[in-house]
């Protein structure tokens, strides 16, 4: 039984390695390796226990590479068996999860009482792990709902619960659609008659999706997940009767992985780039051996259709902003032939932001791809039909997600989709443009390498910047940047959309968002600043910038603007903080470059100050619009 087919199978010495995890040479890589194999609930339990036993010092090491997240959990069912799997799945997504579990069935109490366990714990999100049995219309009923209760009432109850959590602790809720249990009273008619559970569940799900449109609460579509595996397998009445375990045990790792994707998306840890092999991945056969006439791609041949479906899947992901890249062991010219000459190829060269075909090893090539795109290795998914290549990349570049693939190419889109690497919780217009932007970036880089001086290069980019304070329109993108920017990020503070809105409305905060256009295209929103007003000083709580525009003096333009705004408000001093993480060494000297002085270093944090009156305008070659 293998419910997570995209993960490599477990290690033979898994238990042994869990016991000695604290002694491993590289704790982060070891945790990543153990969490990234397909493990049973018993093994999840073992690994979660080993993580919990780590010393504070070791935990701190982990929180450098894994983003901490506190999850509250309420349920109408017994969730104890789930928690270890939650922790392990979260690690798989780069999240160090802390779970606070409410007592069984304490849904309303936890939400409405401001002093409840969860409201006091102030989690980053609350999972409302409620299945159909949580709601009055189906409680203690099998297929026909209880009199006088319907899905409308259930939605009202859920809305009250969500609102209460928001009011009492400003926390967002992860909310589930309902899976339909495998019972009917009158067959298909169950779906036509109000008051039948099957019909009420369907109304509930439709209503819930609409309700969530107007909030920042997150949807977790459990109904589709259950459909994928089949309700007969998903529900296990034995376990419900024995201990109120809501789903068949063997699907707990799958459910946990599904949850962790939503948390990853909240933290901006979803993947950005799909790196594809060519031979026997994008087409059947080997272009170098079989030639243009010999490879199988397109209609009319089952293998050709299966590979076409893989191309379709990639093309559609691209429409959602996923960057595509090629990494192939081939003669460069031959690898490009099908894209240029084969009439049945759906993907064209221009669909790829980076196209690497050579005889170097794939691990180095993948590093190079990340480098050219200026994104982290942990943003990449590498798809290759060759198990040896997958293994090499997994070993040499453990940050990269490398799915196991079935031998049969017709099963590949399904497997990739089940892994949910690119799951998102919302879609901004910047996301949609993203893949084009990265391709433009690669072009910019090529120009930079050709043009001699940096300043001449920057001037040739013809950059235009627009500033404004936070607003409703930008809120989603601001939240996204705050949660996923790691390198150019001075303090790496993460805020939810609710908190961002709070800054937007606050009189004690000065906020700034910046958008950048250049001759290659619109970069969209690229930088965010949050200052807190402390007497006559602005303390820069957050300053971050998207990696694709670093080394372009954008920060100087922003600093000019910031100082200007501060001066107008009668502020005399700016205070900047650099809080080091594993990933933000890039900006250690950021404030120094802008003319701030280091005044103090406490708990590893560097405190920098700038007297407004001493500031010298930077005037970089960027015009303001």
């Amino acid at each position, binding site marked *: 039984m293998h419910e997570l087919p995209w993960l490599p199978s477990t290690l033979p010495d898994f238990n042994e390695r869990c016991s000695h995890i604290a002694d491993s040479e590289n704790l982060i890589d070891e945790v990543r390796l153990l969490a990234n194999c397909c493990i049973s*609930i018993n*093994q999840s339990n073992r690994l979660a226990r080993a993580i919990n036993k780590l010393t504070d010092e070791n935990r701190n090491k982990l929180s450098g590479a894994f983003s901490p997240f506190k999850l509250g959990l309420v349920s109408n069912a017994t969730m104890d068996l789930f928690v270890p799997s939650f922790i392990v799945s979260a690690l798989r997504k780069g999240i160090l999860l802390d779970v606070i579990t409410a007592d069984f069935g304490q849904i309303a109490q936890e939400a409405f009482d401001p002093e409840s366990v969860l409201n006091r714990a102030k989690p980053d999100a609350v999972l409302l792990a409620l299945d159909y049995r949580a709601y009055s219309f189906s409680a203690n009923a099998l297929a026909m709902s209880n009199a006088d209760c319907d899905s409308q009432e259930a939605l009202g109850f859920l809305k009250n619960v969500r609102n209460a959590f928001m009011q009492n602790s400003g926390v967002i809720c992860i909310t589930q659609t309902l899976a339909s249990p495998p019972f009917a009273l009158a067959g298909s008619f169950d779906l036509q008659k109000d008051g039948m559970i099957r019909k009420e569940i369907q109304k509930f799900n439709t209503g819930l999706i609409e309700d969530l449109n107007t909030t920042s609460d997150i949807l977790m579509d459990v109904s589709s997940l259950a459909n994928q595996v089949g309700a007969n397998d998903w529900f296990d009445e*034995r*376990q419900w009767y*024995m*201990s109120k*375990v809501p789903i068949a045990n*063997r699907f707990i790792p799958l459910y946990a992985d599904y949850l962790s994707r939503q948390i990853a998306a909240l933290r901006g840890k979803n993947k950005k780039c799909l790196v594809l092999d060519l031979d026997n991945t994008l087409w059947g056969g080997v272009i170098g051996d079989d030639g243009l006439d010999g490879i199988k791609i397109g209609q009319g041949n089952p293998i050709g259709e299966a590979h076409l479906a893989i191309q379709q899947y990639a093309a559609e992901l691209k429409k959602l902003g996923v960057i595509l890249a090629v990494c192939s062991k081939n003669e460069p010219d031959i690898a490009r032939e099908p894209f240029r000459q084969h009439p049945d190829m759906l993907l064209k060269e221009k669909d790829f932001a980076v196209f690497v075909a050579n005889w170097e090893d794939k691990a180095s090539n993948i590093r190079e791809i990340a480098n050219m795109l200026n994104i982290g290795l942990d943003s990449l998914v590498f798809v290759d039909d060759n198990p040896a290549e997958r293994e090499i990349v997994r070993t040499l570049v453990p940050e990269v997600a490398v799915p196991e693939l079935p031998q049969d190419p017709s099963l590949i889109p399904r497997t990739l989709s089940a892994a949910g690497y690119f799951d998102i919780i919302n879609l901004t217009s910047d996301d949609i443009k993203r893949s084009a932007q990265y391709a433009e970036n690669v072009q910019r880089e090529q120009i930079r390498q050709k043009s001699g001086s940096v300043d001449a290069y920057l001037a040739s980019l013809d950059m235009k910047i627009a500033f404004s304070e936070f607003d409703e329109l930008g809120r989603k993108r601001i939240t996204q940047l705050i949660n996923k920017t790691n390198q150019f990020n001075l303090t790496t503070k993460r805020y939810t959309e609710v908190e961002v809105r709070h800054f937007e409305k606050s009189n004690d905060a000065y906020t700034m968002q910046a958008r950048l256009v250049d001759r290659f295209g619109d970069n969209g929103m690229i930088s965010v600043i949050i200052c807190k007003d402390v007497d006559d000083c602005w303390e820069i709580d957050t300053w971050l910038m998207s990696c694709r525009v670093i080394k372009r003096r954008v920060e100087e333009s922003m600093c000019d603007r910031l100082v200007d705004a501060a001066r107008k408000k009668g502020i005399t001093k700016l205070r900047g903080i650099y809080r080091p993480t594993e990933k933000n060494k890039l900006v250690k000297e950021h404030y120094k470059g802008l003319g701030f002085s280091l005044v103090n270093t406490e708990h590893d944090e560097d405190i920098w100050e700038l007297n407004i009156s001493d500031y010298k305008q930077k005037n970089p070659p960027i015009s303001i619009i």
Partner: protein
Amino acid sequence: MSFDKINVIDKLETIFSDTFSEDDYVFSSETGRDDIDEWDSLNHIRLLTAIEAEFGFQFDLNEIEELTSVSAIADIIQNRLN
């Protein structure tokens, strides 16, 4: 395929050590629920899930009631497999 009881008990030993973290009990065919503190109702579910995954069948509710010792579990497994 026929399984003899010794064979089944060997496999159960691995499953037990995987399911329970405590190691201050001696595993034998006589080991029962009273011998393992961790063998509560939730760990019982973990145990039977692991057994089901290993042997490829599902216990029915009546059988689950009877899974109270290594020997009893092995008997039921043998019944189901042979």
